[in-house]
């Protein structure tokens, strides 16, 4: 009989036979990880290191100068840097909360309630997994203008709330929760909304964490909203401000060390919140993904 080796999946501890996997993983991870390390290192480089030849990968004397320059430049432009940060945080926090609420409500409805058109709704949503938002930027602009949302936070938030992939994942997750939980709450006289809030929400936290991460990344990084749906400079968000910086510095000759340092700092500011959120929530995300199948 051949040696049984299936138990090698998800091993409890290290074994010499796993070494071959590390031989593949380490170089691959270097390809993925070194640029990330570079984002961190570059943002803290003083000017002379930014433009040194030969260039050095890691920072030697870290400084916060680039971050100070960045904040100062924004203030000279009329809108204080803190205003962009504030706008970005408002949009991200409000957006993530709304997204979680709206998506999980709908997911519960699709998973456990009965109503006409339920199947059709889920099928259309699955179809919308293939939807690419950039393709409908123009009609979205027209819709937002018609709704009178131009120059409001809602113009940045509302288009990104209904997240087909989020609804899909939460619905699949709720499908796994036993109906007995719901039945016993019903016998106790709870309404569907009470069941949702008190019975379902506590057990679907991993799925909600996943929606939080996905929607945070979309809201936090969205360059289109602040560019097209907002005219008032004081209502714009960080991705817009940083994009204008990139464009200002974009032309080859303008690629000065000072500019590059500020952009590196900007890049780090945009990246770190997503990273921290993911590190905290990663186990929950993987837990949710186990139910992510399309049947």
């Amino acid at each position, binding site marked *: 009989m*051949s040696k049984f080796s*299936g*138990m090698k*999946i*998800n091993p409890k501890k*290290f074994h010499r036979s796993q070494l071959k996997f590390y031989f*593949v*993983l380490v170089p*691959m991870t270097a390809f*993925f*990880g070194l640029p*990330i390390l570079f*984002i961190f290192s570059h943002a803290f480089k003083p000017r002379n290191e930014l433009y040194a030849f*030969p*260039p050095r990968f890691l920072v030697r004397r870290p400084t916060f100068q680039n971050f100070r320059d960045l904040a100062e430049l924004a203030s000279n432009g009329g809108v204080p840097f803190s205003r962009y940060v504030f706008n970005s945080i408002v949009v991200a926090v409000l957006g993530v909360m709304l997204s979680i609420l*709206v998506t999980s*409500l709908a997911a519960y*409805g699709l998973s456990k*309630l009965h109503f006409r058109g339920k199947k059709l*709704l889920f099928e*259309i949503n699955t179809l*919308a*997994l*293939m*939807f690419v938002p950039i*393709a409908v930027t*123009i*009609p*979205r602009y027209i*819709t937002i203008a018609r709704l009178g949302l131009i120059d409001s936070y809602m113009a940045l938030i509302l288009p990104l*709330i*209904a997240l087909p*992939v989020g*609804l899909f994942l939460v619905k699949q997750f709720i499908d796994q929760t036993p109906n007995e939980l719901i039945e016993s709450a019903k016998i106790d006289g709870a309404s*569907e*909304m*009470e069941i949702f*809030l008190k019975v379902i929400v506590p057990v679907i936290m991993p799925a909600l964490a996943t929606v939080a991460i*996905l929607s945070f*990344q979309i809201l936090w990084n969205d360059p289109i909203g602040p560019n097209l749906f907002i005219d008032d400079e004081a209502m714009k968000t960080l*991705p817009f401000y940083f994009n204008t910086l*990139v464009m200002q510095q974009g*032309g*080859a000759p303008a*690629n000065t060390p000072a500019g*590059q340092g500020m*952009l*590196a700092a900007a*890049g*780090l500011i*945009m*990246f770190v919140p997503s990273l921290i959120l*993911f590190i905290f929530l*990663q186990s929950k995300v*993987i837990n949710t*993904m*186990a139910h*992510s*199948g*399309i049947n």
Partner: protein
Amino acid sequence: MIRKMNHPAWFFTPYVLLFVLFIVIPVLMAIGLSFTYFNTIETPEYVGLRNYIELITRDEVFMQYVLPNTIKFAFIVGPVGYFFSFLLAWILAQIPHKPRTIFAIILYSPSMTAGVAMAVLWKVIFSGDRSGYINAMLLDWGFVQEPIQFLTSPDYLMNIMIIVSLWTSMGVGFLAMLAGILGIDQSLYEAAYMDGLKNRWQEIFYITIPSMKPQMLFGAVMAVVGTFSVGAIGVQLSGNNPTPQYAGQLMVNHIEDFGFIRYLMGYASAVSVILLIIIYAISKGTFSILGERN
């Protein structure tokens, strides 16, 4: 109030409302606008199929650069990214929890970089003078005499875009596949080895992939969508729309070029509709290929 909320409408209405407003209506509107001439100032004027006909017969940039570029880009980044998502997920499943978590975070991180972080990072690495990291290395090792203009030269731009996109391709689909592999019932493997499964390759093809087919499909859709929605890269890297000699021009850039630079919204909408149709067709195609394996 909450005590009386029993009707399903309480649950699906907010989502359906936003879904219709910002996804369904815009898609329908794009289809409608694609049959018009619309310059954003005057009211749209119905022109029938003219935009589509022009796109196919007259738009040399589209037929010569944009479409071939998009196809080349998508057919490399999509399948290769998908393959590596599975491969890396499978390898990660072979090592213990702690190192796996660390590796997974590092592999997933690039998919979180967007906009400015990406632009800075890759611009510095591929910068066209001596201070660019790749150029500095090539000069140092004596491979080249003069720094290569990676980002402004049409010969290199596309390949760099492909590398950068592959770098960001370990996203949600990768996590789904990792979870899928970890979630497979161990007794399935035991039974299969009893039945004469010989090696780990057979294990992958007869047990692992069939058992996680739902996650494989989800990952495939994410790969297709991801590939077609990253269009900004070429413009960000080269700092120009259109990209130098249209070398990195993808459909998404073409839409932007006509919609927001030339204000030919009807025409841009026609390109959008074609893009959505292509994504839909490729996703369906992928589904049937993956479906047949079972």
